[in-house]
């Protein structure tokens, strides 16, 4: 397949991160073009989530750079990166359990809305926010239970809520951390269908531990192992590469 030229949506260069003596990310570089669907795979402890945390600013790298559409992100705090068009879902769910699904998505919408500084207006009267939240929930198939609290939902529903919150922000680059983990076969198919519907102006980078379940989604694949990029290429190239079999599929 042809690779588009121009400014990459996401460009990571020589990224390094150590936790004490343990290197979690070793000289990782990768370039994701606008509209691309990138899969990052690797065994447990390969540094996949650490890479996301470095991109979002949850962690500060020891060396290297992260660029979003050509703009250096390193000195920009996490919340500002979100305003530049970055969104992510978490592998370990970090939702607001006592609130309704709708309210969770509204918090996501407020994050990009100046109204979040308003101390006078009653939030529950802001129909445009709640309508947009319901729309996002309907998109992931949670429209019917929008008024339930997170505590009353199943694990699969929470995973989809994570997606709804990220998608509601209309990001330019969407980072998905194991969106299929812990889901039933049926739910996995729903999430895959949902990903298929995401418009092409959204660039998606997805982490998956289980390669098979996400293969169909990927155009290009990056294989991480012990914090290093081992193989990168098109789906066919990476699957065929002997090193992939060795570190990932082999044992």
């Amino acid at each position, binding site marked *: 397949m042809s690779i588009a030229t121009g400014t990459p949506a996401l460009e990571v260069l020589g990224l390094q991160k150590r936790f004490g003596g343990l290197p979690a990310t070793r000289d990782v570089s990768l370039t994701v073009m606008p509209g691309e669907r990138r899969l990052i795979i690797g065994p447990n402890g390969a540094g996949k989530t650490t890479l996301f945390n470095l991109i*979002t*600013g*949850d962690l500060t790298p020891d060396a290297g750079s992260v660029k979003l559409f050509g703009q250096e992100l390193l000195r920009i*705090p*996490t*919340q500002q990166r*979100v*305003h530049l068009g970055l*969104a*992510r879902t*978490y592998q370990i769910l*970090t*939702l*607001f359990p*006592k609130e309704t699904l709708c*309210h969770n998505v*509204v*918090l*996501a919408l*407020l*994050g*990009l*809305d100046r*109204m*979040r*500084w*308003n*101390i*006078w*207006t*009653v*939030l*529950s009267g*802001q129909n445009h926010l709640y309508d947009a939240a319901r729309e996002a929930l309907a998109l992931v198939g949670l429209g019917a239970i929008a008024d339930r609290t997170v505590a009353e939902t199943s694990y699969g529903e929470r995973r989809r809520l994570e997606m709804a*919150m990220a998608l509601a*922000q209309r990001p330019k680059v969407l980072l998905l951390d194991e969106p299929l983990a812990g889901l039933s076969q049926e739910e996995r198919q729903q999430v895959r269908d949902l990903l298929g519907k995401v418009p092409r102006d959204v660039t998606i980078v997805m982490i998956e531990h289980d390669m098979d379940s996400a293969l169909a989604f990927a155009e290009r694949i990056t294989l991480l192992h012990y914090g290093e990029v081992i193989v990168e290429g098109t789906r066919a190239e990476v699957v065929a590469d002997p090193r992939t079999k060795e570190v990932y599929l082999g044992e």
Partner: protein
Amino acid sequence: MRRGAVALLVLAAALIALPFVVTNEFYLNLASQILIYALLAVSLNLLVGYGGLVSLGHASFLGLTAYAATLFVGWGTGQLGAALIAVVFSTLCGALFGVLALRATGIGFLMITLALGQIVWGIAYRANTLTDGDNGLRYPARPRPFGLDISSAPTFYWFTLAVFAIAVFVIWRLTRSPFGAALQGARDQPRRMRMLGHNVWLIQWLAFVLAAFWGSIAGLLYVYYNLFISPHAISLQQSAEVLLMAILGGASSFAGPIVGAVIITLVKNVVSSYVDRWNSLLGAIFVVVILFMPFGIVPGVRQLLARWRKPAKIPERAA
């Protein structure tokens, strides 16, 4: 909700009519004190309940305002000028304290607020030339807002009630506002809030400044009521008592700190005239409430009411 609105109207009418029923000045003044401490507790609860930031230095804003107002009145700025300067000064101190305290969260935040409160207390206690140390300062006379005389017990009570009602309404709106939702989100999931585009630090700092502002308004009422301010009013014990009001009444509810302020102020002033060890009694009340209602009185009573209503519903469904 409609039933709640009716209850609120009845309560408001009762509060306005109070001076006609309670003619004893001691008790009417007590009602004014309760309102002042309730406002202080509600303002603190913006941080404790809604922000998850437990502060042990909130009485310092009461003190900073009271001292500043007294000093500036003495320097001839006039009542209104002194009040404005005092509230602005105290709120600015809150802005500075917020920057320092929000270097940390949890216990660290608590310790920094405690230390800042102690510094304010220490200055009030030691800066003799300015504050007359332990003797305290006299405030010359109550102001005449809009030409109204508030020197008598009933008129001062109505004045306090009006300020209290406006302040509490504005704070209540905040808790229902987008900012209030963001503040509670920052309390529950700060990392996720950042990843949603929220500036968690700025949200918490603004909450700190707003809490300081409303605490300062309570401080103004305090000095108008007592016509006196001394280091005692801003000691660690005072800050702890206000925190106790919020926790006893229930920091997770809006009305909790008000209920807490009523109980603690009553125990302090009424029971203490019969019982020497009223502090022990307060401690006992606190232990019992927390034992049976770990989230405080208002959420606890709500839970009890819900439990009473539920069993009545089940047979209905079966029938």
